[in-house]
């Protein structure tokens, strides 16, 4: 268990800077998820914490000790790789024992720790197998076991579930969560999957193009996304963005000549401005036609069992909006639905900077 402090970390490959000053304070025992689209620099950040990648500037400290110039083995971390990186010629037991052997643990201690980890991960039956004789999920667990036996201060995960099929991924996600609750080791977890991020993380760090866009609990990020990027990245289906003009008194947003919707009263200081409204699909509800409803011309609908996703357009706007309505609705094309969204669920963003207003 340890506190990990990341201060002003940048990373450059030659001339190009791929991380531009990341700051995070990871508390003891916290499960932090670093999430972002492909190529945003998540792995790079994780690998710098691991010591596999040099730090261009800034400092990383683990328990108040700056580790910038320490070898990976001296940082007291353990890492699970995307492709697991199990040693192909060693048995499961040896794979887990190798790090302990190199650290000169006694044979007895090694056996004890490996057996313990194997029990925790239900690998007891498989200790004599080679990695190639294991299924994907089992390999994944061995990779976890290799980390656990070392009892490190920090666990690092680089997309450890992305090679598994959907069902197994959900199951392993749950097991990871349980494992963390039990071991309470500070964990840093990289993924591009927002569902994984929301369900696993105590807090998330959303990275976009090398910048940390927002850091906070899943709920924070969902309810108060700090930027357009975060708003669009988290949540599925993604948030709808609609251009609008705020009325002078800040109480109404004008989407087009005929469509106006009421806003939360906290938005007075942006009167008269052009903004981007953000409304999550699940925050729309059906209503009777009225003054402040959104008339949506249906394009098509998808049935997801518990709910129905409706795609449609507002008058004078060519972009498809998404609405997620509970229950099954049989809606034919070109029908007009009237939707409302509660004012507190309408987010305002500055279209130029992308920042939340």
């Amino acid at each position, binding site marked *: 268990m340890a506190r990990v402090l990341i201060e002003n970390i940048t990373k450059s490959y030659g001339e190009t800077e791929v991380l531009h000053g990341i700051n995070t304070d990871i508390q003891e025992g916290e499960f932090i998820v670093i999430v972002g689209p492909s190529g945003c620099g998540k792995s790079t950040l994780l690998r710098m914490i691991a010591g596999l990648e040099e730090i261009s500037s800034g400092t990383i400290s683990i328990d108040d000790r700056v580790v910038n110039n320490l070898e990976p083995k001296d940082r007291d971390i353990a890492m699970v790789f995307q492709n697991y990186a199990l*040693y192909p*010629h060693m048995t499961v037991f040896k794979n887990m024992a190798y790090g302990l052997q190199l650290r000169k643990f006694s044979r007895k201690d090694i056996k004890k720790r490996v057996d313990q980890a194997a029990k925790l991960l239900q690998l007891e039956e498989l200790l004599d197998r080679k990695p190639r004789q294991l299924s994907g999920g089992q390999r994944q667990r061995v990779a976890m076991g290799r980390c656990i036996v070392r009892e490190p201060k920090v666990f690092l995960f680089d997309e450890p579930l992305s090679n598994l099929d959907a069902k197994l991924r959900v199951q392993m996600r749950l097991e990871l969560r349980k494992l963390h609750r039990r071991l309470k080791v500070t964990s840093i977890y990289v993924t591009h999957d927002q569902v994984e991020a929301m369900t696993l993380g105590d807090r998330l760090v959303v990275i976009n193009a090398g910048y940390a866009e927002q850091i906070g609990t899943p709920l924070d990020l969902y309810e108060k996304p700090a930027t357009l990027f975060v708003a669009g990245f988290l949540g599925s289906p993604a948030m709808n963005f609609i251009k609008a003009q705020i009325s002078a008194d800040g109480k109404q947003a004008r989407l087009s000549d005929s469509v106006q919707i009421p806003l939360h009263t906290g938005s007075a200081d942006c009167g008269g401005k052009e903004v981007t409204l953000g409304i999550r699909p699940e925050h729309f509800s059906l209503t009777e036609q009225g003054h402040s409803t959104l008339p949506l011309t249906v394009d098509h609908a998808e049935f997801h069992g518990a709910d129905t996703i409706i795609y449609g357009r507002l008058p004078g706007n060519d972009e498809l909006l998404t609405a997620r309505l509970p229950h099954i609705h049989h809606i034919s094309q070109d029908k007009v639905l009237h939707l409302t969204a509660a004012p507190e669920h309408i987010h305002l963003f500055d279209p130029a900077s992308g920042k939340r207003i």
Partner: protein
Amino acid sequence: MIENRPLATWFSHAILILGVAVVAFPIWITFVGASHDAIRMTQVPLPLLPGDQFFINLKAAFVDGVGNAKEQSVGIMMFNSLIMAMMIAVGKIIISLLSAFAIVYFRFPLRMVFFWMIFVTLMLPVEVRILPTFEVVANLGMLNNYWGLTVPLIASATATFMFRQVFLTVPDELLEAARIDGAGPMRFFKDILLPVSRTNIAALFVILFIYGWNQYLWPLLITTDKSMYTIVMGIKQMLEAAEEAPEWHLIMMTTLLAMIPPVLVVIGMQKLFIKGLTETEK
């Protein structure tokens, strides 16, 4: 193809048997030749069935000696060949493993210069640089010993390249996992890289052993002392009997014996060898 057509089966077997016969016929003739006496081997037509002299010839090869003055023991020549082939195979493998390891895993100054220097030697096999190499070996006083026989043949780039390719296919994460587990470079080399490339090493060993065993030109140059002759040289020299007719029965016996070690190596390593040539999973 899983088809049940008797004619096709019959035909394909016939072709296979014919192929085996073509390959095996010279070996059969060698065996037959080795089992007759000198006189029978000078008469035409040559025998096609084995005679009764096999063990007498075998004794001649090992105990009485072969060659013009009957002073050469096949045993000693085979021993020399074995040492030479082993030194070449093992030496080459060790040197190329280490140099490939350095080139793939270390960033040292002039790395690419060394890489290309090794590459250039690909174009200079022993036969091309034979005179300067001889000069060097002679000046180092390595004529007529095992070092002189093997060192110039050990230095070559092919194996280095092969191992470089093998190492490049080893995923980086394996190195990184080992680093996090606490392995230094040589530990990684010994504990991970060598076992992971073991089938490739076996395949290369087979190839290099046969390459070393079959060396002819270089041993011919470097050895003048009869006690250092290799078997391949010995056979060639027996063919060049000055006055008398070549002793075919002994030549055939020696040839037969000379085939045994490479065959044993191939059989012994066959499983690994085939895996090394076909396996891709790392």
